[in-house]
């Protein structure tokens, strides 16, 4: 469950990040302001506040009730979308201007240049950082246990209330989280080395 939440939020966060990034880099001043405001808010609010706001607050004004799972995943996705948008932007800015100019001069449109030339390179630059973000996301998914999503941490809490053995059970949960995060950060280190070699 923890892995599903993390993967899903990461996927949605990457989409939100892409939107946020294109807004922030847009030439239209109004869109750019929206992008900046989104990124600042997403990066400035504590995870747990965002989760509570989406779970308890939002249903009241919209009148729609979300399940704990949906609101948790949406909160995490939007929250991490802000970080990911900045990572994309750094990646795009790291691609040399000459590449863009060359693309224009051989007759690529702006959209084509982005899609065919800049983005593939920017994505490769962003991969190691995205790996770190994913590890952070995996850790913070434990916060969803607070609103009752049945992830690893929630399961551990339930087990503790049944068995009254907090030390053993929380240690086990900690070891599982450690295994997951160390695994994914090694994976991201591996990609980092690989991309560093190719550049």
């Amino acid at each position: 469950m923890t892995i599903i939440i993390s993967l899903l939020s990461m996927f949605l966060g990457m989409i939100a990040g892409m939107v946020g990034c294109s807004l922030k880099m847009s030439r239209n001043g109004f869109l750019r302001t929206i992008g900046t405001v989104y990124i600042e808010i997403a990066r400035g609010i504590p995870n747990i506040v965002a989760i509570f706001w989406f779970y308890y607050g939002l249903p009241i004004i919209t009148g729609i009730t979300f399940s704990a799972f949906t609101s948790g995943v949406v909160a995490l996705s939007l929250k991490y979308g802000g970080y990911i948008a900045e990572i994309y932007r750094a990646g795009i800015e790291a691609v040399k201007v000459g590449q863009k100019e060359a693309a224009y001069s051989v007759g690529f449109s702006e959209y084509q240049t982005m899609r065919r030339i800049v983005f593939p390179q920017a994505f490769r630059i962003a991969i190691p950082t995205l790996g770190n973000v994913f590890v952070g996301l995996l850790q913070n998914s434990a916060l969803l246990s607070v609103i009752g999503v049945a992830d690893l941490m929630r399961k551990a809490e339930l087990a503790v209330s049944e068995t009254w053995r907090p030390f053993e059970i929380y240690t086990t949960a900690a070891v599982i989280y450690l295994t997951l995060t160390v695994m994914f950060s090694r994976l991201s280190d591996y990609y980092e080395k690989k991309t560093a070699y190719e550049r």
Partner: protein
Amino acid sequence: MDLIIGQLGYFAVGAMYSLGLTLASMSIAICIGIVVSMGRLADNIVLRWTSTAFVDFTRGMPFLVLLIWVYYGLAILLDISLTPLVAGIGCLSIKYAGRLAEIFRSGIQAIEKGQAEAALSLGFSKLQTYRRIILPQIVPIVIPPLVNEVVGMIQDSAIVSIVGIWELMRRGNSVANATLKPFEIYSTIAVIYLIMTISLSQLNERYIEKKMFGKKR
């Protein structure tokens, strides 16, 4: 609206708690972080190994899990009862000490090797080299990332509400439960956090980074 204005004083005290927690934990984390970063660069393999294990452990553990593990698990095993405040500050410090250690390490590695070699050949001990030569120079390098960590810590301090510290988030929870107005209350809480985090990160971007890098280059 009246409701929110009426609670602002109550929330302001909570925000003070959040900042106080951050300040206390950050000071401890900086001390531990420096020691650990020196340990990671030490020649002694035991020191290096323990500090690497510490960094991996603290960075790999979700903060919530660490907090609950220390507060409910460790306290029972060792048969001591930690107050929420001690558990909260302790966990925040440990968690961030691991992250700071990596920042300090990259700072130390950014100082040219020749400086340390020169100091050692002049008869400085290793500790003196760190204290007199290397550490003063890493200050401008590490301050911008350090401020980013403070912003992160203000956010993570909201999590310690779970063990019962009356900081901003906990006060928000209790008011939201009492008044049954979660949307207004949680939005207010979010805005207060935003004011704290954005002002700090803007200060960092606009002022501190420029000043620090201006001095160096």
